[in-house]
């Protein structure tokens, strides 16, 4: 969006509009002709997949709101009404519930792709940081959305997560009461969560717009992490990447819809089919899978405030990543040592996820603690050190050369 090249469109109406408001020139330059490295692999399709999931969540969400009632006495019943009486209500509800999980899946893969290929490095630091903000906003949105059906796990998730803020010294209790709008999680809490759950996705959409803007200034990184040197290194975004992305999106939708139609509450918790009861806590409180690693880190620390700090730090640290990893080489293709530690890091995140689903005791607590230490060590020790110590492999002179070497 840096420059508005003017095109001569053949259609007179298009030409008339474009000379006054160059939307068509913009679209042609940014969505069709945009020069894109020719060597992008399928890991690069997850940005488009994540955007698709955001759109699906927006559409299904707007429609569900037409039937949902944000009131402690009616929320659970209105969801059951959607499931039983509203035309295709069951479909809309399961698209939305599973859509959140698959949105996270796509975004997590997108993030790990960025980590592996060094997409956070100069000149893409702002692009990366907007991405981190998107992740945090997504988490807030997903959490508040999970509260809305007002089942047992919804209610107790709201209680536990809002209580995190009570760890803040001095003002903690005041903040929690302010969040609740009372002395416990109750109707005011549900109604404000509903309002914000409707608002935040539009903020997300705006952030995604900024994210794409920040992408289109330097252009895409690529699997070899080499800058584009000539026109030969690139292909126009359309039709090459539009069609590739579309194919990948369809494969992703196949998996997503298989869950929607054949195992729609596989990722949920049975106890959330029981209406919220402020007097009875379920035996085993577990968040949705996409929060399990963070949850494991929260519980790994034996101190209340410490756990909260560690959990939030695990996200905040991502903002500093561009300056923690000082290596000039972007792609781990050419950093064999870092690559080993990267895969260890990926496994660590999965292990944290598994540990987060288990009761915080015995072996699992130990595992979670070791994994938490490695999570932070990767960013604070391993990457800074390896940036200085590691000798990268020789790199091809250009993207075109890298492509030709493969053949």
């Amino acid at each position, binding site marked *: 969006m840096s420059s508005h090249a003017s095109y001569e469109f053949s259609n007179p109406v298009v030409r008339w509009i474009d000379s006054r408001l160059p939307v068509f020139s913009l679209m042609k330059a940014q969505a069709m002709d945009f020069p894109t490295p*020719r*060597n992008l692999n399928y890991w690069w399709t997850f940005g488009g997949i994540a955007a698709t999931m955001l759109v699906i969540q927006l559409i299904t969400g707007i429609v569900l709101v037409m039937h949902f009632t944000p009131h402690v006495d009616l929320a659970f019943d209105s969801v*059951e009404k959607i*499931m*039983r009486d509203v035309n295709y209500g*069951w*479909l809309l509800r*399961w698209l939305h519930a599973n859509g959140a999980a698959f949105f996270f899946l796509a975004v997590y893969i997108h993030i790990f792709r960025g980590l592996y290929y060094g997409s956070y490095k100069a000149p893409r630091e702002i692009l990366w940081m907007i991405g981190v903000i998107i992740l945090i906003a997504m988490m807030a949105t997903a959490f508040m959305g999970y509260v809305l059906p007002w089942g047992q796990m919804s209610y107790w998730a709201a209680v536990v997560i809002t209580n995190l803020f009570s760890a803040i010294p001095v003002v903690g209790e005041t903040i929690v009461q302010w969040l609740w709008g009372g002395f416990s999680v109750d109707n005011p809490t549900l109604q404000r969560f509903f309002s914000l759950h409707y608002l935040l996705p539009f903020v997300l959409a705006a952030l995604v717009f900024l994210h794409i803007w920040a992408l289109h200034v330097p252009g895409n990184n690529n699997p070899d992490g080499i800058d584009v040197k000539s026109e030969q290194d690139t*292909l126009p975004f359309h*039709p*090459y990447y539009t*069609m*590739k992305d*579309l*194919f990948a999106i*369809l*494969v992703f*939708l*196949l998996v997503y*819809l*298989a869950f*929607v*139609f*054949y*195992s*729609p*509450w*596989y990722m949920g918790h*049975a*106890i959330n*089919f*029981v209406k919220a009861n402020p007097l009875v806590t379920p*035996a*085993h409180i577990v968040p949705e899978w996409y929060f399990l690693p963070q949850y494991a880190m929260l519980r790994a620390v034996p101190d209340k405030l410490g756990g909260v700090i560690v959990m939030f730090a695990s996200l905040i640290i991502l903002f500093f990543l561009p300056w923690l990893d000082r290596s000039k080489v972007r792609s781990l293709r050419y950093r064999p040592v870092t690559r080993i530690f990267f895969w260890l890091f990926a496994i660590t995140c999965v292990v944290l996820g*598994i540990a987060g*689903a*288990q*009761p915080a*005791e*015995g*072996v*699992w607590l130990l*595992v979670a603690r070791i994994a938490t230490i490695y999570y932070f060590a990767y960013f604070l020790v391993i990457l800074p050190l390896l940036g200085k110590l590691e000798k990268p492999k020789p790199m091809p002179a250009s993207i075109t050369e890298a*492509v*030709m070497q493969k*053949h």
Partner: protein
Amino acid sequence: MKNRIVRMLAVAGLGLGLLAAPAQAAGLQENAEEHAFSFEGPFGQFDRAQLQRGWEVFRQVCSSCHSLNYLRFRNLAEPGGPEFTVEQAKAFASQYDITDGPDENGEMFTRPGRLSDAFPAPYPNEQAAKAANNGAAPPDLSLIVKGREGWYYPWYISPVLKLFKGNGGPEYVRSLLSGYTDPPHGEEREGLNYNPYFPGHWIAMPPPLSDDAVEYKDGTPATVKQMATDVAAFLAWVAMPKMEERKRIGLMTMLYLGLFTLLMYLVKRAIWSRVEH
């Protein structure tokens, strides 16, 4: 076959077994007994005769203590369920007194049930339900099958097993209803009954079923196991009344999307064949 999956997973999990021990400590609960319900799997449908039998068990036995708040009488005649005729459903509805009103004088009154009515609850509120049942209110059964799980295998088995078998809710209900046994060591607890399938093993509900508690119109022998199975299937339908529609639309969607994906792959390949990549 399902048992084989469990066994295969168990063997595969042995390698990871070092980490498994604490997961087992979570609850005093048996895994539900395996049962191949007709509605399992991507093509599974409800067995109409079984749902009709299960409805008899529910209304003659369970409904004296348990509500079924989300069931409307009209649902009994809707496609994808027991599929009674509209006349039969009307007849069932008219056997129940529904509180309605207020009338012109401001009084509440009772009238026979209609298709649009919800199945009436046995107690007016939770306090009354508690008072009548030794302090333990019988839960509403509309979502019991989704709200309970049947499998308590270690973490590396359950996620895969659930993919094939679901949460095990119907199996849990079936096992619980037919699984009362004498407590080990002759232990007794005031007002509680021993049932290995119940979390914690001691349940307030006395054994609800006994042989021939219900007379089946289709001549099926009404053993405890049979009634437990039928009512579990019935409650599975009440919990997921749109299951058959879901699977039907799912199949069409999957076939369509499979074709579209294949075509899209060919398009992508055709376009990319122009360049080295």
